[in-house]
C-alpha cells in the first residue's frame, strides 16, 4: 500500500463565533487524488488553507509524510514550499511574465541558481502546454492559460502534494477543459492532489476518493464508484445529483 502523504486529524477552525471546521479527519496516500465537494460556505477553502497553514487551525493535527506540521517547532515556510497551491483566481504575480512566475519560488525560496530555475521553469511550462507563452505577462493570457501557469508554478517546487481550490470555477466554459486535461495528466503521472471541485467528469476520471463536506464536517467519503452508486446519506445523494446536473459528468 502506498505511504500516507497527508494525514489530517480532528481539525477545528472558527472565525469568531462561526465554527467553520468542526473536526475534520482524513488521509491522502501517495499518488492519489482526493476530490472535495460541498455547498458554498461549507469550509472547503478554509480546510485547504488550514492544511498549508496560511490559515492557522485552532485545534487538530496534520502530518505531511512523517512530519507533524502542526507542531509549533516545524518550519512553516519549508512545509509550504513542499505543498503546492492552485487558486480559483490564479493569484499570479502580475509584474512577472509566465516564466518568471514559475521561477520566483525556485530562486527565492529554494535558492536554486537562475539558470537552473529557467530550465525547470521552461520544462514545467512545456508540461502544461505553454512553451510558446514563456514571456507573456498574466494580463496577456486567457484565464485557462493563467491557471496553467499557476499549475506550472506549483509543480516547479516539486511538491509532495498539490491543493487545488476550485481551479476551474472562474473560467469560461470553453477554457475549463484545457485546465482539467492538465490536471488529469498530473493525476495519472502520480502526483498527489486534493481538489475542491464540482467537476464530476474529472472526479470520475481520476479521483481515488470523494469527500462530501457540509457545515464543517465530512458527511460521507468514498470512491467515485461507491459515492455515485451506493452512497448512504440522502444529503450526499441529493448534492451529487444536483452537481451532476449542473456540471455534467454523468457516465458517458
Amino acid at each position, binding site marked *: 500500500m502506498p505511504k500516507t502523504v497527508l494525514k489530517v486529524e480532528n481539525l477545528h477552525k472558527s472565525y469568531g463565533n462561526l465554527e467553520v471546521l468542526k473536526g475534520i479527519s482524513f488521509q491522502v496516500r501517495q499518488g492519489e487524488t482526493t476530490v472535495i465537494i460541498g455547498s458554498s460556505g461549507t469550509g472547503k477553502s478554509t480546510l485547504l488553507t488550514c492544511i*498549508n497553514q*496560511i490559515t492557522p487551525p485552532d485545534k487538530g493535527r496534520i502530518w505531511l509524510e512523517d512530519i507533524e506540521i502542526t507542531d509549533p517547532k516545524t518550519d512553516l*515556510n*519549508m*512545509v*509550504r*514550499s*513542499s*505543498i*503546492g*497551491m492552485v*487558486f480559483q*483566481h490564479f*493569484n*499570479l*504575480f*502580475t*509584474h512577472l*511574465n509566465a516564466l518568471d512566475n514559475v521561477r*520566483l*519560488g525556485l530562486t*527565492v*525560496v529554494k535558492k536554486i541558481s537562475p539558470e537552473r530555475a529557467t530550465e525547470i521553469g521552461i520544462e514545467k511550462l512545456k508540461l502544461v502546454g505553454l512553451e510558446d507563452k514563456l514571456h*507573456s*505577462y*498574466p*494580463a*496577456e*493570457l486567457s484565464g485557462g492559460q493563467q491557471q496553467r501557469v*499557476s499549475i506550472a*508554478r506549483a509543480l516547479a*517546487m516539486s511538491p509532495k502534494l498539490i491543493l487545488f481550490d476550485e481551479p476551474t470555477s472562474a473560467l469560461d466554459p470553453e477554457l475549463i477543459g484545457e485546465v482539467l486535461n492538465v490536471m488529469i495528466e498530473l493525476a495519472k503521472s502520480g502526483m498527489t492532489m486534493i481538489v475542491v471541485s464540482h467537476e464530476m467528469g474529472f472526479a470520475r476520471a481520476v479521483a481515488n476518493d470523494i469527500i462530501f463536506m457540509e457545515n464543517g464536517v465530512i458527511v460521507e467519503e468514498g470512491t467515485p464508484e461507491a459515492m455515485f452508486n451506493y452512497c448512504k446519506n440522502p444529503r450526499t445523494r441529493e448534492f451529487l445529483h444536483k452537481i451532476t446536473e449542473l456540471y455534467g459528468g454523468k457516465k458517458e
Partner: protein
Amino acid sequence: MSFPELAWSILPKLLEGMVVTLELTIIAITMGALLGIPIALGRVYGSKLIYIFCTFFVEIFRGTPLLTQLFILYFGLPSVGVMLSPFTAAVIGMGLNSAAYQAEYFRGAIQSVKEEQLIAAYSLGMKQVQAIRYVVLPQMLRLVIPSWSNELIYLLKYTSMAYMIQAPEIISQGRLISSRNFRTFEVFIVITVIYLVVVLILSKFLDLMESKFRIPGL
C-alpha cells in the same frame, strides 16, 4: 535695455539659482523616497508601535505648513545650539515634508497590490520580507510613478519657499537682481519661463519612465 537683452544678461545668474533649486529638489525627493518607503511599509506591515510612530510622523509633516517647518529648522534650532546653513535647513525640511507625502503615495500603491498575490507568495514558502521584496515592492514602484511625478513637480516649485530662509535658489537670485535693476516684472517673467521649461522636461521624462515600466497587458 530691451527685454531680450535684459533676459540674456540675467540668465547666467538665474540659471545658477535654478541649479540650486534642482539640487534642493533632487536631494529632497531622494531623501523623501528613502524615508517614505520604510514609513509606508511601517504603516502597512509594522507592529502597533511602529504604525503609531510612522502615522505620527506623517500627520505632523502633512498637518503643518512647510514654511513653519523651515523656520523652525533655520531660525528655531540655533536657540538649542544647532546651526544649519540655509541650504541644509531647506533640504532637511523639504526632505522630511516630502517623506510624509511620499509615504502616503507609497502606502496607497502597496495597498493596491492584491492580497491574493501575497497569499500565493506565502504558499510558495516565502517569508514576509521575501514576499514584500519580490512581490510587493516591484509592483509598488510601478504603481507609484504617476503620483510620484506630481510630487516631484510640486517639490520643484515648493523649493521657492527656501527663499524665505535665504537659500540661494532661483527666487533669491531673482530678488537680488531685481533689487539692483528694479525690473522685477521682467526678471520674474524670465524665472517663470525657466520653471516652465524645467517642469515640461521633467514631465516628459517621467512619462517615458512610466511607459517604460508599464506591465504589459495591464
